């Protein structure tokens, strides 16, 4: 047992030294163990006289040049102390050599021992979230500046290699981060790595970093050593990293929930650990393994397991194994691999009874239970140590089963109500479109059927058949055609899905067929390109069934939608299975057997290409090198995997592979692929380029034949026969059956998923950057930083880049809050009192489809325009952001914004009025307007008047302007915004601004320039001129054309007078006049056009200069980056 290091000065008195090393001494107290003699007797006496009996064994730490020793461990038995000693030798000693001074060594050792002790104490306490854990959790959030909702999963003592020096400290594993913190001799080391950034996790062992865990990110490699429980730590790290990856792949699991259910379920079996979350993760892992093993629905959660025997009637034996219990199933797997496996859905359980002394007299009697299912089949489990508990537990679970008799009735009733659908599900298409069979083949099939009938007479039929070694052998030789549908469904577990989701298929079909979407279009295009050689699909019956299955699945799982290759697989399923069963088989393939294969980025298939590559390297190294050289390792088998060989082998052979695939899982495709590569080894090594190698493999695959089934294509085969499919499968099982296991594949998939997702992320980022650069506003490095900040922002919002995009940048979508936080931090336009209003308007300008989201490009353009656009573009963007219909009268109402936004808007208006009418005690214009508004609509904004009048008038200058055209104008000059034509196209026209809108715009401009006198004055001057212009327009609405000329004239005049006629308050002599005219009510329309606005503004040199100024974003971006990250601080 480790003890808090304690200084002592005398090392030999009363103690015998048993072992020494450079820094450690193992001692035994005299009078104990082997030491004999007078002194030992004496010590023994002393010990018994004194009350404090010291432990008889201890380990001391010393440094060669120091007089001080530290007790670091004590123990009651020699065995215990030897264990501790060994741990020191294995883990600590080698590290100590790397320290320069002895002080450092001592510091390190003490620190290490303290932390080890803390961990051990942790294990002793049994409370759910212990006080220690809470403290650590608090520290963790403090030290790493974590948001409150970041959950700490577990923490471990370990060392981090900073350069050549190990730093003893703590590793914290949380849901999204792994962190390390140490503080030794005044030196702080902190590491913070996001799981989503991890590209590789590995256990390594090298001279420099002995027995360590390596963590690689895009930027760096980190090494951690000296774990107490390296395997546990590593497993947890791997699991967390994979959860992060899964989140990146699939936004359904985007938020991480502590599954309380799981927690309570497993509380009995899981050793007490630091936090809830860790336990939850353990439970999740166990449940995953469980569902994988028995092909259960993934939602199934393991409740507990129990060692027992299963009586198998067909050979009259008790077989030892383990019973698994979860909310819907009882399962059993034999201890001897593949001997017998059993799944009993609880819904089928009729009766559970204690079976005492049944008379067989064998050992199975003690603690037996008998489970009878609705089909009068009985299953006898024996040798259960805690039978009563198990029976109790099963009845509890049975009671919790949803009473679906009523539900089914309800569903059926509903289905009847809805059932005006014009379709009926088809039986297996093979029964409708019989292929002609020659008599030898017919006989062969009958023989197969007979063997299966016999087999099933022994082991039962349906879900709860005993799956035995005999069964496996029958599968390997190929299933009889007539039983394929049934057996595939049983083997794959899809039959369970179907049973649990009664009525769902019908509903999905009805919903899917009545909707129109991209997936349906894509499906339509491929219906006749699925299995065209089969008669069933040369006919509308088959085509319609295929359409229904694919559309219903796209509806069920929108993250996949429709992926080519699913059509090919589904059409084969339809040949052998009734329609609904085919649907559930397809679902099982997509979700369980080949996870993520068909999603929008085909992630799963890419992951498995990586797995295959690694397997090839391990099993066929020479060939791997060759294929790698040809550059085809990654692409060689994409279609093999995605279509389960259907598109590359003759159909009647591929279905035999599918037999094994459904029976044994995804490992089969890997095994078959390896076998095929192995067989063609020699030929492939001779190839000089990729096409040649492809040809070798294609010829081989097309030449595979099956003498036990009819070929589908009636055309004579052109390819030379290569191998009988049965031989290929036998060979596969012989060569790789035991070396390529499901567990191994799962493990490799975890590993490669990190890499693939990272690559996809990177390429998405690259494409986005490329697209953003075409706008030519921000510099590439700024865009790069901006994008990583956007990603960070989205990361914390727990949103992942979404799928189905028109352009890469659409993947990153920001809502208003996120847009605001970044725009405010980066754009100079969002600095003043008016920030909120401008931000909101820019957001609207960028939100092309009015869906409340702006893409990464929208943000980059908004920021880019405000910092890099030339004056004309910047002003045009500002103008358009304030123009109707983008800025509606609702927007003009101050209440449109949040609490603070409201204030800002109010301020801005009064602010503007102050400028306009500083000396006037009662702002005439405003009160006049207010009066008129309250007359018109009773309440609402004081700014409504002009827009109301404009929109209500037919033939007003605002007619014909849509949000779209205004946006196009505001953003003119961007890549892709104008049709591809030579030379810059003139921007589309912008609507004139009504007075209220213009006032808002002017207020915004005032706010932007208020810190610089010359700019501010220029705005005031230009604003005054524009107001005058607006008045002119107002009086002579019919003379709009001329007025734009007037505007230039006026502007020019203003320029002349700008210095002479302005008083210090920014008032011009014309103010009185303006106010007077404003207070007059008139029927005609007050307006300012874009041309007038631009001309007037740009004629003010300070303004032109101000809006042309190029502002660097680098400091702001740096600040933002610092906000989120502290990658490696020391």
């Amino acid at each position, binding site marked *: 047992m480790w003890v808090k290091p304690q200084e002592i000065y005398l090392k030999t008195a009363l103690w015998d030294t048993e072992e020494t090393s450079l820094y450690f001494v193992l001692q035994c107290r005299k009078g104990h163990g082997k030491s004999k003699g007078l002194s030992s007797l004496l010590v023994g006496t002393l010990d018994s006289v004194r009350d404090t009996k010291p432990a008889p064994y201890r380990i001391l730490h010393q440094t060669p040049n120091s007089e001080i020793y530290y007790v670091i461990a004590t123990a009651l038995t020699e065995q215990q102390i030897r264990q501790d000693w060994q741990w020191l030798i294995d883990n600590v000693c080698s590290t100590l050599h790397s320290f320069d001074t002895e002080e450092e060594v001592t510091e390190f050792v003490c620190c290490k021992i303290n932390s080890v002790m803390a961990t051990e104490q942790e294990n002793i306490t049994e409370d759910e979230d212990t006080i220690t854990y809470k403290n650590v959790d608090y520290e963790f959030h403090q030290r790493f500046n974590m948001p409150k909702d970041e959950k700490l999963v577990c923490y471990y003592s370990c060392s981090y290699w900073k350069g050549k020096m190990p730093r003893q400290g703590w590793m914290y594993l949380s849901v999204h981060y792994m962190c390390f913190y140490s503080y030794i001799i005044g030196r702080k080391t902190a590491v913070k790595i996001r799981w989503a950034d991890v590209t590789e996790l590995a256990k390594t062992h090298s001279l420099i970093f002995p027995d360590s865990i390596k963590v690689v990110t895009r930027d760096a490699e980190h090494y951690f050593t000296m774990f107490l429980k390296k395997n546990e730590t590593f497993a947890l790290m791997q699991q967390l990293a994979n959860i992060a990856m899964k989140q990146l792949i699939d936004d359904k699991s985007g938020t991480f929930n502590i599954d309380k259910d799981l927690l309570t379920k497993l509380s009995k079996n899981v050793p007490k650990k630091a936090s809830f979350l860790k336990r939850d993760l353990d439970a999740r892992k166990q449940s995953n393994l469980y569902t994988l093993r028995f092909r259960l629905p993934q939602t199934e959660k393991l409740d507990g397991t129990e060692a027992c025997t299963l009586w198998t009637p067909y050979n009259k034996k008790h077989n030892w194994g383990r019973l698994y219990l979860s909310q819907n199933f009882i399962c059993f797997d034999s201890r001897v691999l593949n001997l017998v496996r059993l799944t009993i859905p609880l819904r089928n359980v009729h009766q559970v009874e204690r079976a005492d002394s049944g008379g067989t007299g064998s050992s199975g009697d003690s603690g037996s239970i008998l489970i009878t299912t609705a089909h009068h089949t009985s299953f006898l489990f024996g040798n259960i140590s805690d039978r009563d508990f198990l029976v109790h537990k099963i009845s509890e679970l049975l009671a919790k089963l949803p009473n679906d008799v009523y539900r089914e009735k309800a569903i059926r009733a509903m289905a009847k109500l809805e059932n005006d659908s014009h379709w009926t599900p088809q039986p297996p298409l093979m029964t409708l479109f019989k292929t002609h069979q020659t008599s030898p083949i017919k006989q062969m099939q009958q023989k197969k059927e007979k063997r299966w009938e016999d087999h099933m007479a022994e082991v039962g039929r349906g879900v709860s058949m005993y799956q035995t070694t005999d069964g496996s052998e029958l599968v390997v030789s190929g299933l009889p055609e007539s039983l394929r549908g049934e057996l595939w469904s049983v083997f794959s577990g899809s039959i369970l899905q179907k049973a649990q989701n009664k009525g769902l298929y019908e509903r999905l079909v009805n919903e899917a067929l009545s909707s129109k979407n991209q997936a349906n279009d*894509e499906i339509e*295009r*491929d219906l*006749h*390109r*699925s*299995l*065209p*050689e089969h008669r069933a699909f040369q006919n509308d019956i088959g085509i319609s069934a295929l359409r229904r299955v694919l559309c219903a699945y796209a509806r069920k799982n929108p993250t996949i939608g429709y*992926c*080519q*290759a699913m*059509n*090919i697989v589904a059409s084969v399923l339809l040949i052998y299975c009734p329609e609904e069963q085919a649907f559930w088989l397809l679902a099982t393939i997509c979700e369980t057997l080949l996870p993520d294969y068909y*999603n*929008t*980025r*085909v992630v799963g298939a*890419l992951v498995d290409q990586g797995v295959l590559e690694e397997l090839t390297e391990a099993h066929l190294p020479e060939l791997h090198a060759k294929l790698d*050289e040809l*550059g*085809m390792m*990654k*692409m060689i088998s*994409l*279609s093999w995997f*995605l*279509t389960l060989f259907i*598109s590359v082998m003759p159909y009647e052979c591929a279905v035999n592979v599918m037999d094994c695939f459904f029976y044994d899982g995804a490992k089969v495709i890997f095994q078959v692929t390896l076998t095929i590569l192995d067989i063609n080894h020699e030929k492939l090594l001779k190839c000089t*380029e*990729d*096409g040649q190698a*492809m*040809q070798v493999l294609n010829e081989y695959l097309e030449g595979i034949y099956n003498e036990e089934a009819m070929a589908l294509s009636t055309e004579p085969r052109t390819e030379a026969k290569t191998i009988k499919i049965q031989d290929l499968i036998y060979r596969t099982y012989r060569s790789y059956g035991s070396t390529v296991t499901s567990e191994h594949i799962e493990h490799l998939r975890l590993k490669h998923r990190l890499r693939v997702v990272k*690559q996809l992320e*990177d*390429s998405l980022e*690259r494409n986005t950057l*490329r697209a953003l650069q075409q706008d030519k506003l921000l510099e590439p490095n700024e865009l790069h930083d901006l994008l990583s900040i956007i990603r960070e922002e989205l990361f914390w919002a727990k949103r992942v880049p979404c799928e189905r995009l028109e352009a890469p940048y659409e993947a990153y979508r920001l809502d208003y809050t996120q847009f605001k936080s970044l725009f405010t931090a980066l754009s100079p336009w969002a600095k003043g009192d008016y920030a909120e209003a401008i931000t909101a308007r820019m957001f609207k300008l960028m939100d092309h489809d009015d869906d409340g989201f702006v893409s990464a490009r929208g943000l980059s353009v908004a920021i880019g325009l405000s910092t890099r656009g030339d004056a004309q573009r910047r002003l045009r963007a500002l103008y358009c952001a304030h123009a109707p219909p983008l800025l509606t009268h609702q927007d003009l109402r101050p209440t449109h914004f949040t609490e603070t936004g409201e204030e800002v808007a109010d301020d801005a208006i009064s602010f503007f009025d102050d400028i306009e009418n500083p000396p006037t005690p009662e702002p005439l214009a405003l009160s006049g307007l207010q009066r008129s508004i309250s007359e018109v609509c009773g309440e609402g904004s004081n700014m409504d008047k002009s827009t109301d009048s404009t929109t209500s008038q037919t033939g007003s200058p605002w007619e014909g302007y849509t949000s779209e055209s205004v946006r196009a104008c505001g953003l003119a000059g961007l890549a892709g915004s104008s049709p*591809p034509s030579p030379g810059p196209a003139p921007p589309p026209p912008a609507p004139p601004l009504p007075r209220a809108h213009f006032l808002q715009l002017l207020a915004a401009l005032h706010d932007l320039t208020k810190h610089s006198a010359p700019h501010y004055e220029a705005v005031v001057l230009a604003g005054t001129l524009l107001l005058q212009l607006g008045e002119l327009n107002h009086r002579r609405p019919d003379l709009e054309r001329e007025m734009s000329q007037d505007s230039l004239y006026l502007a020019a005049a203003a320029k002349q007078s700008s210095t002479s006629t302005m008083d210090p308050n920014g008032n011009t002599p014309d103010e009185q006049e303006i106010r007077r005219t404003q207070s007059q009510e008139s029927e005609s329309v007050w307006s300012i056009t874009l041309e007038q606005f631009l001309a007037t503004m740009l004629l003010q040199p300070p303004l032109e200069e101000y809006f042309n100024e190029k502002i660097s974003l680098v400091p702001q971006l740096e600040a933002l980056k610092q906000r989120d990250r502290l990658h490696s601080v020391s």
Partner: protein
Amino acid sequence: MSSRKKLLLKVIILGDSGVGKTSLMNQFVNKKFSNQYKATIGADFLTKEVIVDDRIVTMQIWDTAGQERFQSLGVAFYRGADCCVLVFDVTAPNTFKSLESWRDEFLIQASPRDPDNFPFVILGNKVDLDNRAVSVKRGQQWCQSKNDIPYFETSAKEAVNVELAFQTIARNALAQETEAELYNEFPDQIKLNANDNGRNRDGDNCAC
């Protein structure tokens, strides 16, 4: 390099799903049309020997999957291409609009030495159908705007212009190949370059 050497021309066919890439390839190579093709998954290829300017060359024609989610997976095949054929369906305007992005994607991924002059050929397929939606003029205009890419209106079903189009493809590919040879006058250099390319390709593979 001697021109005696048997030449291998690598041609990549790209375009949206269902525009008729597989049919065009089969019409050219096997002189037959079938409506019994499966959708192409991953990639497939056929070879054919043709005579171009009295030289026998082998065309290796790579047919690719058109669905968007497979787009990034095809890049492994792009390398070393001598010509890229972009196909659209004259009855489906969307497939015409995609040409631009197919072209860009190809240039980015294959990164040919001289992207501006890399030989492309555009095929507007399915002209046998009545419901035409992309006019000849529109097709030609686009091709002209892109450095005068040769444009053919084809029907894989009725073998309209297929032979002619592939002759052009072969000739342009050959010109590209010959130019490549000029760059590599010394055999040693070729080897070096080949290796370099290989490394670059590996880098590109990561993009998928």
